[in-house]
């Protein structure tokens, strides 16, 4: 489980990074490598590419730390590099073809009648999800379904509901508006809710 409290390295640690201090760099890697790796894995989908991308991210941080001016938090800056590097690697691997499970998630969003009522019945499986024996499998399924989301929604869900960033932080990382983040997150949750519903109704 990711800790939601992400603390920024201290100013003195950042200053030592800028001076090329290896011990300082080790501290930053130790603090953030798992988060960066998980983010890279979410974008790239396999261990080898995620590990390479993670290494590239920290090498980029090392090479560019002099340009970090402290206008944003360090970890937002780091996450932005991580997203950018991982997406570039993905584009290179796929040679420009973007391969996604679903190009559109509309089919998995709630449907309504002309009067605005639910078109299909909605079942409340929230209690079932608390069953400890079901938890491990449910989380594995959710993880899988997150990977089925189109990239823009997958990133929003990962950054906020998995990694615990705020809307403002996620907006900064993704370089979109807070409203854009909220919209993507909401749609991703509706998609995942629907996927979990279908899965649990089969249990």
């Amino acid at each position, binding site marked *: *489980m990711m800790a*939601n409290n992400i603390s920024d390295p201290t100013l003195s640690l950042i200053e030592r990074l800028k001076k*090329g201090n*290896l011990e300082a*760099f080790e501290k930053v*890697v130790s603090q953030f*490598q*798992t988060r960066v*790796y*998980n983010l890279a*894995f979410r974008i790239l989908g396999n*261990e080898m590419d*995620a*590990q390479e991308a*993670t*290494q590239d991210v*920290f*090498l*980029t941080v*090392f*090479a*560019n730390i002099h*340009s*970090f001016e402290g206008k944003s938090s360090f970890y937002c800056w780091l996450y*932005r*590099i991580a*997203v950018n*590097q991982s*997406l570039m690697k993905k584009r290179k691997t796929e040679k420009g073809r973007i391969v996604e499970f679903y190009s559109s998630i509309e089919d998995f969003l*709630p449907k*309504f009648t002309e*009067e*605005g*009522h*639910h078109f299909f019945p*909605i079942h*409340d*499986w*929230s209690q079932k*999800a608390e069953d400890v024996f079901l*938890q491990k499998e449910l*989380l594995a399924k*959710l*993880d899988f379904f*997150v990977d089925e989301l189109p*990239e*823009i929604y997958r*990133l929003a869900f990962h950054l*906020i*509901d*998995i990694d615990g960033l705020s809307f403002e932080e996620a907006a900064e990382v*993704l*370089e*979109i508006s807070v409203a854009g983040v*909220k919209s*993507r*997150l909401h749609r991703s*949750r*509706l998609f995942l*809710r629907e996927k979990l519903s279908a899965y649990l109704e089969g249990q």
Partner: protein
Amino acid sequence: MTCKGLVADLADYLLGALSLMRKREIESHLRDCPECVALLNTYKVTSSLGQDIPTKRPSADFQAQLISSIAERIKQGAPTAFPSLSIRDEPSPTLQLLSKES
């Protein structure tokens, strides 16, 4: 307030970001709509499960290998042979693509 209207405002309702009037409209609707209650409960669970998804970890020797690469670069006295990314002033082209897709 329709079910469709409630779903559109669901995220803001859970954040406490709606006006008092809108919040009351939603709560009034929830009192009479078991399907929206079901959707609300399952939406909340879906969101909260995210933080419990097991963490993936890089290999045990990853950190040591990375630090070793950096140490080598410091020894060589080069900033890095790795192509540096200008991320201060220029919006990244890849993220610009994502921005357009919002």
